[in-house]
């Protein structure tokens, strides 16, 4: 019998507290990130039942979805946003949970903050009431998004009732060429397997092209695993992982660090392990990607054209394509690079880390934002912002005509004041191009940071190779 296990199996097996007859397992949760939008009803639930937070020491809270990205010294204008943020503050005080408040330099998007603080560690289980929690899988952590009832369950019991995912592996072979980023890889993968292709799966990412990514790049890939329908995305931890984590505020120190690294080195898929599904791609098939429709699977290469629904044989899919094109205001056959934009957004938990900001800055340097385009950079955390400012990147953006903002989710989901107007079109480094995601009637094209920066300069989607 083959006893070989995958990385996901190992993470799962080491966290099962109890197994029910039907196979549902009670799984221990090592890390819980909490934010203002999906937690108030959970804390209220605890209060109503007279329950406590079982392990406040394993819980970390930060306000990110709703926070304004401009003047932080003022009170928040939007009353409902303010109430939600105040509720988080009150809940954290009442239940003894550590919170990075809006004035704290460590504040930022929860999926940027966790790794940055060393809260995210290999071999852990990590959850958050947010679907992009898969981001943390870049460290070899079994991380996934949950709903508010589950947030309450974790707060009260530090466990969750789960059924195991199937094992899926995505291998991208080859040497990553210049100009192809982690964002292009994951968009191409989603384009290949579809938004439901990973349903019920934990995906392990491997192959030379993927393994050559930095930690930031791996986070970008894992972040969008959910856009392929999978709950968990994983990279096996390696030297890059350890180097990234070493010395972070919440990483283990001294002898504990040495012991941790020894353990983390064992976290990898056995050579003979069998996956339920394997996808193999070669990086030479992948060009810079951009979305044309209203689902992240609607991708084409930047040198391609808007696809033609008449060529689609599946009726449901054809209807969806027609609807998307109407919403997006595009016609079949039009070259992607002819699409004009009003807005460029560089930010979100997908692409707001220092490396992303650097990539965008290198495109912008010495250039100007096109007339009539609003361009903004929203760093992923106060610390990312600080590093960028130390490197002088803020000045490059400001001189080019970009707005340089405070950390938060911002235009990724348009809960704060940053949003698209009806019919406005954005080149965005975020992760979802759903109808209305960036504001009612707003139109989103998902791209990498360098491509968003280039689009800001040209006023239309552009192939980086054509930037003079």
């Amino acid at each position: 019998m083959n006893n070989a296990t995958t990385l996901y199996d190992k993470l799962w097996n080491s966290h099962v507290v109890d197994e029910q007859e039907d196979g549902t397992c009670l799984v221990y949760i090592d890390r819980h990130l909490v934010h203002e939008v999906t937690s108030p009803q959970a804390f209220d639930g605890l209060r109503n039942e007279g329950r406590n937070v079982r392990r406040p020491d394993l819980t970390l809270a930060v306000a990110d979805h709703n926070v304004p990205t401009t003047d932080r010294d003022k009170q928040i204008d939007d009353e409902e946003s303010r109430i939600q943020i105040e509720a988080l503050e009150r809940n954290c005080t009442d239940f003894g949970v550590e919170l990075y408040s809006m004035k704290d330099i460590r504040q930022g998007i929860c999926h940027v903050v966790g790794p940055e603080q060393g809260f995210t560690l290999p071999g852990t289980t990590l959850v958050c009431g947010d679907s992009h929690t898969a981001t943390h899988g870049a460290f070899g952590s079994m991380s996934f998004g949950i709903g508010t009832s589950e947030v309450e369950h974790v707060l009260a019991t530090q466990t969750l009732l789960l059924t195991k995912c199937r094992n899926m592996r995505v291998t991208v072979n080859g040497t990553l060429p210049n100009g192809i980023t982690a964002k292009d890889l994951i968009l191409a993968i989603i384009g290949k397997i579809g938004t439901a292709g990973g349903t019920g799966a934990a995906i392990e990412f491997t192959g030379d092209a993927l393994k050559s990514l930095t930690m930031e790049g791996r986070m970008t890939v894992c972040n969008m695993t959910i856009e392929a329908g999978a709950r968990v995305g994983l990279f096996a931890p390696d030297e890059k992982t350890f180097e990234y984590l070493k010395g972070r505020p919440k990483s283990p120190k001294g002898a504990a660090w040495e012991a941790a690294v020894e353990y983390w080195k064992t976290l990898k898929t056995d050579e003979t392990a069998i996956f339920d599904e394997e996808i193999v791609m070669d990086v030479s098939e992948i060009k810079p990607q951009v979305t044309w429709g209203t689902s992240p699977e609607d991708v084409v290469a930047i040198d391609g054209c808007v696809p033609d629904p008449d060529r689609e044989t599946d009726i449901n899919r054809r209807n969806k394509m027609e609807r998307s094109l109407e919403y997006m205001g595009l016609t079949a056959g039009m070259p992607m690079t002819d699409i004009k934009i009003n807005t460029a957004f560089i930010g979100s938990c997908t692409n707001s880390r220092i490396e992303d900001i650097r990539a965008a800055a290198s495109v912008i340097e010495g250039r100007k934002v096109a007339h009539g385009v609003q361009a903004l950079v929203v760093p992923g955390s106060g610390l990312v912002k600080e590093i960028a400012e130390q490197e002088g990147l803020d000045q490059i953006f400001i001189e080019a005509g970009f707005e340089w903002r405070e950390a938060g989710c911002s235009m990724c989901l348009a809960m704060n004041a940053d949003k698209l107007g009806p019919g406005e079109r954005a080149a965005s480094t975020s992760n979802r191009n759903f109808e209305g995601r960036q504001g009612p009637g707003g139109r989103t094209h998902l791209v990498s940071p360098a491509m968003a920066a280039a689009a800001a300069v040209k006023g239309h989607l552009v192939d980086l190779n054509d930037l003079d």
Partner: protein
Amino acid sequence: MEKFNTLTSVAAPLPLINVDTDMIIPARFLKTIKRTGLGADLFSTLRFNQDGTEREEFVLNKPAFRNSEILIAGKNFGCGSSREHAPWALLDFGIKCVIAPSFADIFYNNSSKNGILLIKLPQEQIDKLTEDAELGANATMTINLEAQEITGPDGDIIKFEVDSFKKHCLMNGLDDIGLTMAKSDKIAAFEARQNIIVA
């Protein structure tokens, strides 16, 4: 949580694939700190024009379907954001059951934790039910969770599968937290033996 037993209602057909949770309830309505009141904004962009008036052509605005408690949808329903506001909005509007060829994972969990029954059926059966549903107000369906059966307007019966633990919780209106807290000894024992590196 309310107990789910049988449900008889007209079913509203919404034959769209990849209906995401942003479509079910857009982010701008997530600023509430309560679970109730979200029904008014359910499917906001599909249901209303930009000036706030209703779009006549949207199924839940048609007189026959305004009080539907069952929704019949396309594959991968509930994809995207983990917001539990999506099932809360459905429930607050009055939808207690969604039938589709497939559901996104997180939405699936969130729904059953709020007493909404999600039924997965093959596309051909969905097509048949969609046709039935399109008959409108006189075409009620009955869902019997205990028997795992849907009885269509013509009396035809369709069987469905449901996870036994979810069925038990739905039928008894059980809250998992209470059940798990009864296992706190096991949790404490796990914590005691757990690798200190990660704790």
